């Protein structure tokens, strides 16, 4: 077997050195009836070539985002990632290292995390950020638990503009943890009155910006109302590129900012692995979940980095930990950080502007054909009202070669929103893509 260096002779010699006759003597504590004497009746080992063929066949059955006009978003976005990013994250020393428990021989990973934390804090306009979470949805659910800890109130209020998967993930975790969560009905036009719904029994208000339907929301009045009632404002960002163009949640008064960082450096990957971001104000840092990297000095006085504030974490605090999390999304955070280092503030702003411009161009082309865009404002994604079922239309347009977006009914099947289609447009879309979209839509959208 190509991955196993020991030879039969080695194994024989090692057993002799250990002083047992057979390998199964080392499994003596396993119940005799449960110890398998021969390999299970499953396929035997395969060469590289055979595995490549088998998996290549499966891969070939999928239609990739680069094959044709592509407008699918709803929390995962297709962006162009510079070639150097994937090259660098495949460096053995990044790819095949563990959590930096021995900081003296992990300064590479640790400095990356310190830079990542700084980038996220600056981008979100917050004081501190952690070293990343599994993804945006779990970061949101954890932020709600954090708000329970900070406010000692056990009831969250969630906007109807939150991504339905994020809402479901948050509901599951909160209810399983024994806390209450109120999720407002889906709000495609950003018309809900959150301030009226707010009272001082809530721990937090969770608002996504841009929201699930693409609307931009002014968090400032919400932040003010939250402050007056001792409620924490949790801002959720599922398209991290929006922060290049839209006012930061921190500047608008959010107390915790969570989000999905996939757009930077990470591919679509059919939903994972992605990278969650988590940022907050200095005063709440000890209530944060997840890993934190901090700056310090070594015994010769040189700057270095270590994992810190681990007294919050499960391996020290066990049942008193702030969260059970013991990994971050290290390699995805690295990809995020490299991509953002290449872009810098200038590139990020420029690219965000291109995203917005492409979405506006598509919206204008659709409006020119008489279609209704529900949004008064948006960044790179908006909600389109169609005449037929959006789910059927998406299949029809896929058959015409255009992946048109996400039918709202796929995530919200019981809310009478069958005629709504979420359409995202990023820098990858060309004028030809837009023309193909409009043509396929006009052809396919017949009631």
């Amino acid at each position: 077997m190509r991955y196993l260096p020991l030879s039969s002779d080695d194994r024989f010699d090692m057993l002799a050195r250990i002083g047992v006759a057979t390998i199964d003597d080392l499994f003596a504590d396993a119940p005799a009836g449960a110890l398998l004497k021969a390999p299970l009746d499953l396929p035997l080992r395969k060469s590289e070539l055979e595995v490549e063929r088998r998996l290549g066949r499966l891969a070939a059955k999928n239609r990739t985002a680069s094959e044709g006009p592509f407008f699918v978003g709803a929390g995962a976005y297709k962006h162009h990632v510079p070639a150097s990013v994937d090259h660098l994250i495949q460096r053995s020393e990044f790819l095949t290292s563990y959590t930096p428990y021995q900081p003296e021989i992990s300064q590479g990973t640790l400095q990356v995390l310190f830079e990542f934390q700084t980038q996220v804090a600056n981008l979100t306009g917050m004081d501190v950020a952690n070293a990343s979470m599994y993804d945006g949805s779990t970061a949101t659910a954890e932020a709600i638990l954090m708000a329970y800890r900070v406010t000692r109130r056990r009831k969250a209020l969630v906007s109807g503009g939150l991504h339905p998967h994020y809402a479901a993930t948050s509901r599951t975790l909160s209810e399983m943890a024994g806390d209450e969560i109120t999720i407002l009905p889906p709000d495609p036009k950003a018309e809900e009155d959150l301030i009226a719904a707010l009272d001082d029994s809530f721990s937090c208000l969770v608002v996504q910006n841009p929201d699930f339907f693409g609307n931009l929301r002014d968090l400032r009045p919400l932040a003010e109302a939250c402050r007056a009632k001792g409620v924490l404002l949790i801002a959720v960002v599922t398209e991290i590129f929006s922060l290049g163009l839209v006012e930061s949640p921190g500047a608008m008064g959010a107390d915790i900012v969570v989000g999905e960082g996939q757009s930077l450096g990470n591919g679509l990957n059919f939903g994972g692995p992605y990278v969650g971001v988590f940022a907050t104000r200095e005063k709440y840092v000890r209530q944060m979940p997840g890993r934190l990297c901090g700056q310090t000095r070594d015994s010769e006085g040189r700057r270095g980095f270590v994992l810190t504030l681990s007294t919050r974490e499960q391996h020290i605090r066990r049942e008193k930990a702030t969260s059970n999390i013991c990994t971050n999304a290290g390699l995805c955070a690295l990809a995020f950080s490299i991509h953002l280092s290449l872009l810098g503030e200038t590139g990020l702003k420029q690219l965000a502007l291109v995203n917005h411009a492409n979405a506006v161009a598509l919206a204008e082309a659709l409006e020119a054909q008489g279609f209704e865009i529900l949004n008064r404002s948006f960044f790179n994604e908006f909600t389109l009202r169609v005449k037929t079922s959006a789910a059927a239309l998406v299949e029809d347009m896929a058959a015409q070669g255009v992946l048109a977006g996400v039918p709202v009914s796929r995530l919200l099947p019981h809310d009478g929103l069958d005629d709504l289609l979420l359409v995202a447009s990023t820098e990858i879309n060309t004028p030809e893509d837009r023309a193909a979209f409009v043509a396929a839509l006009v052809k396919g959208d017949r009631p």
Partner: protein
Amino acid sequence: MNQQGRPTRGQTVTQEVPRTFTGNRALEIGEALIFETGRDDFTGVDIDPPSPFTPRLGGLERQSAIDLPGLSEPETMRHYVRLSQKNYAIDTGIYPLGSCTMKHNPRLNEKMARLPGFNDIHPLQPLSTVEGALELMEELADWLLKLTNMSAVALSPKAGAHGEMCGIMAIKAAIAAKGEAETRKVVLAPESAHGTNPATAAALGFSVRTLPAGPDGLVHPDAVKAALGPDVAAIMLTNPNTCGLFERDIVEIARLVHEAGAYFYCDGANFNAIVGKVRPGDLGVDAMHINLHKTFSTPHGGGGPGAGPVVLSERLAAFAPVPFLKRDGDKLTLVEEAEGTQAFGRMTAFHGQMGMFVRSLAYILSHGADGLMKASEDAVLSANYVRVGLSDIMSAPFGDKPCMHEALFDDSWLKDTGLTTLDFAKAMIDEGFHPMTIYFPLVVHGAMLIEPTESESLVSLTQFLATLRDLCFRALRGETERFTGAPYFAPRRRLDETSAARKPVLKWTRPEPVVE
């Protein structure tokens, strides 16, 4: 002979090592933060500005500055390559972190995960355009079920600890379905458990009752019996356990737990020791997470991403979270909505760590049933080789009995040296080895948990043992400074973790301009 035609000759170096102007030491090059070298007005990505258009941002244009430096591509390459060179990695040497399982990461897995048909597909594309992805998930699920002999699998959890959440949530849902939510509020966990076990149970509203381990490092049925009662929801047991031992009485423990109306959660962190040898379903397990990054070799990436699918017994299968795969004859679909099912809810957006599923399946197919069994055997064989190679000089807390995939030692052999486990670990760094897991499990004083995995050759194991034995003798001979000052040769000497925690500096801030 060098190219100038001047033969180089070894010199006798007696003088002290000089200090360099840069502080660098040849290939060991210091690297500033991007914030100290990059410029906010520079970008390393060429982007054409869009044609003039009327924005539709509703007046929410960013007003605040961001402060993000940009780097050109050459600067970027150099920055990250230099940083990478400050990391130890499996590809540079043995990484014997017990319980963490640092085995070789086959590059075929990386290649497969990067096929555009897997890494360039969107989780919410029409299902008709991702049939190959669903088939891959089904094939992986099938392997996981057959290797564990369980009934259902939830693929979506994002990491081991997330899988624990998922398993305990399924148990909580099953208990609620039986109308026992108000009575069963306790989870049993041995004191040797991973910290995530009590943290998970507590986060989900359970109180934790700690089970003592016997003097042999195992959990005994009598202790379980004494802790069980009508208030117990579940036991969380790691097998093989964190001392590297197979829980000999696991079947009896499972029987007692089930008899008491509770569920058996198995922490599958150490499943890599028994894949293809023992199926957890045959032991009475109701739920177990599988760390794909440990058992099936997806890379650890400096601390993630992981993946933690959870296998479930018949009794829990119906409560598995959405999304899950459903096959009707030829048609494979994805159930994404909990409504109308018994699913307890949702663990995450989308469908889980697809990139890790591809890598794991590539590993599983490469090994096959025979190779998986052999990998487990080699892991156990190598750990025992290490155990025997050190047991005459280091102290093994549970005597001379065989271990599974990791060998545990304590610090009693260091008692008269004035040295600690940490000192010993840091001296290993100077010898070019990543230390073993230290101070875990907590049940053993000054624990040193060594897991060589199946990826080491006999030459590598022999060199590792020779080095450790040499260090042991030096420690016992009183060469204290070699240990207390270590590491001497790493990119950094010992780092001050206390002051890092006391006054946390968690991000870079621009220095105040100097006023003349």
